[in-house]
């Protein structure tokens, strides 16, 4: 009987070994399906961006790309898993601005965003919009700023939880105006938008991925976009600078990373593939529908992403500290 077991085991192990044997050499890369970890749950904006890019990259690389959602703890669980994955180019991470805010928001991260990853390239920078419920009194951004200065904590500001884009934007806004509003956290953007549509809360600042269709339909009021230029999807919405809010620039940038130690040739190949993917018509069109655009080819490079990560990490360390948020 024992013999039966050991025989079975041996057969199974042999079969398994045959299955899992693969060469990690750069020249025949990619020889097996690639996994991109998204550190958020399926269906969210980051997940959507990833799936769009993954589809296009998969065509370029001639290999299947699987998107794996590892959500939790503000994206740090998925990032941690990617950091410890084999550096063979078959496990990648697509993360957003949270990569740079995590060191300020979380204690004892098991990875260092800047040294444990090999950056591949920037993917997109999603603009933010400052929006309010339909019947909120201020008409323009100037009115709004005056209104906030005057009413301060009587204004309710929705955010989608710790580390969410909407929370970061709120911090930055309150920092710029040197006043406090009453922050109302939600479990994600969906419920926050529901309450904004229902007029239960006053205002919010969130990514165009979440707000564009609502603004276009006139369901919510838009005051400004947080990019230097107006965006195509919302031509009537002024930039923050036009509306009198200087030096207020914020975009939710997304980057693609490999674990540190990945063969530079593979990183190079992935970066080239990312640039090809971002240049395709389908990606450009889908991104435009979301109110964003692919970054230009010279940004979809390891160097550009590394620099972005470094400067943003520094910026958010200051803003988060100024907002009095203690890391968890």
């Amino acid at each position, binding site marked *: 009987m024992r013999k039966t077991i050991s025989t079975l085991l041996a057969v199974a192990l042999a079969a398994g070994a045959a299955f899992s044997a693969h060469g990690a050499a750069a020249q025949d890369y990619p020889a097996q399906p690639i996994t991109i970890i998204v550190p958020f*749950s*399926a*269906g*969210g904006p980051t*997940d*959507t961006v990833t*799936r*769009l890019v993954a*589809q296009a990259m998969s065509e370029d690389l001639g290999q299947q790309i*699987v*998107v*794996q*959602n*590892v*959500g*939790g*703890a*503000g994206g*740090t*669980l998925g990032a*941690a*898993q990617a950091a410890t994955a084999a550096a063979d180019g078959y496990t990648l991470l697509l993360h957003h601005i949270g990569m740079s805010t995590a060191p300020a*928001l*979380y204690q004892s991260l*098991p990875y260092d965003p800047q040294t444990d990853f090999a950056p591949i390239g920037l993917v997109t920078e999603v603009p933010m919009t400052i929006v309010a419920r339909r019947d909120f009194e201020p008409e323009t951004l100037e009115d709004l700023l005056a209104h906030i200065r005057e009413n301060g904590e009587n204004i*309710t500001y929705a955010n989608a*939880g*710790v*580390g969410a884009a909407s929370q970061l934007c709120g911090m930055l806004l309150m920092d710029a105006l040197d006043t406090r509003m*009453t922050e*109302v*956290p*939600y*479990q*994600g953007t*969906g*419920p926050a*938008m*529901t*309450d904004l*549509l*229902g*007029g*239960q*809360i006053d205002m919010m600042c969130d990514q165009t991925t979440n707000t*564009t*269709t*609502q603004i*276009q*339909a006139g*369901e919510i009021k838009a005051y400004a976009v947080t990019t230097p230029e107006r965006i195509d999807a919302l031509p009537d919405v002024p930039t923050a600078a036009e509306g009198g809010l200087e030096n207020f620039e914020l975009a939710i940038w997304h980057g693609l990373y490999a674990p540190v130690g990945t063969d530079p040739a593979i990183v190079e190949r992935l970066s080239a593939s990312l640039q090809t993917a971002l240049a395709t018509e389908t990606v450009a*069109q*889908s991104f435009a*529908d*979301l109110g964003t655009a692919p970054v230009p080819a010279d940004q979809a490079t390891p160097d550009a992403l590394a620099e972005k990560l470094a400067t943003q990490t520094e910026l958010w360390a200051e803003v988060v500290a100024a907002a009095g*948020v203690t890391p*968890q």
Partner: protein
Amino acid sequence: MDLISSLGLGFSVALDPINILYCFIGVLLGTLVGVLPGIGPTATIAMLLPITFSLPAETALIMLAGIYYGAQYGGSTTAILINLPGESSAAVTAIDGYQMARNGRAGPALATAALGSFFAGTVATFLLAAFAPPLARAALSFGAPEYFSLIVLGLLVSIALAHGSVLKALAMIVLGLLLGMVGQDIYTGTPRFTFGLRELFGGLNFVSVAVGVFGIAEILRNLEDETERDVGIRKVTNLWLTREDFRRIVWPVLRGTGLGAVLGVLPGGGHVLSAFASYSAEKRLSKTPREFGKGMIEGVAGPESANNAAAQTSFIPLMTLGIPAHPVMALMIGAFILQGITPGPNVINQQPALFWGIIASMWVGNVLLVVLNLPLIGLWVRMLSIPYRVLFPAIVVFAAIGTFSINQNIYDVYAIAFFGIVGYALIRFGCEPAPLLLGFVLGPLLEEHLRRAMIISRGDPSVFVTRPISATLLALALLAVVIAVLPSIRRKREEVFVEED
């Protein structure tokens, strides 16, 4: 465009042979994957989502809707056959459905689930077609105070879930509420009860808790005395409903459909309550409430209808406002966007063929579900004739792999073992697992809405009684308690010695 021509447009899309084919494949795959222990509808859809990417938009979304119904029904099947719910509503189905299966009536239980779901789905689809925009507007008038009051009402009414001690059921609800609070506090980010593990920051996984307190605990109970189990399974008598069964399920299905359709529209937690509310209602209205929990067909018919109606009407906020009501709807949004459609208030006007096509296909999906699953009932029931010594290791292995595959989080698997032993101990000592699961799913919502209501009202608790909808709901809750307590006080006086609790 009037309703008839809109629906005509919708059916011209949905009845395209290719679309019917993909809808059927979706229903089939959804059922097969949803039946796996440890994999609920959310996980099923997340896993099967990529299959739809390469299809044209309408076809992809129609297939996805098929997957959704299939997954939902597959989850109920596992709940009935092996007491292993994959989502909160199936936990209610498991209470009486599993007992029916143990009594040799798995066939009628599964048929009831299929028929109830079909009827509810049909009614809810019509509601969706006719009244989606106004219903969505009405749902928006629900703010944090209203949701808080609704959940309080739901919790108080649901004490009826217990068929034993009310005191223990209350304690199980509260324990569930507390377990629901594990994880990072959304208001401050403070990690609570996480033992410093970041894997627990997102909270305990529902599937881990459900698989533990239902599935694993049941296996341990069966291992107590193995001869008893093999004798205990009665001969499967019939696969189909008797005339008497039909008579008994008519009203529960109708009431369940109504309750579910209304609750499903509310994006802040209504969907979760529907099955529990329906079960409570049926038990209250029954002439033999004590038989609930021992295999009452009404306890399957009501919740299954309510759940499916809610599943359908929860598309209303998504399709008309672009708001996801629950995780499955969030996945759907992702799927929409990948197809180049951003769900929002404009879809109905800009893409009428798509909008009405999806609605029509929901009905087609429900038809296919019944067509597919009624013949499959024989197959599922035959699964019960697998010797238990083979079946239970399979459940353990599938549950572990299934739970692991959701998030690749090994703590989700450890949690199965923890809740297996805790659940087994509590059940052995006369407690029931369903109230615990209800508390677990409602706990975070209860706290979230209470705290949000207080922040928005600037600390004034009177919002709960000055806002009319909230005040009405609280009054109903009070009424529910009075109705529940009065007769039991009277009875206690009469039956001091017979009262079993």
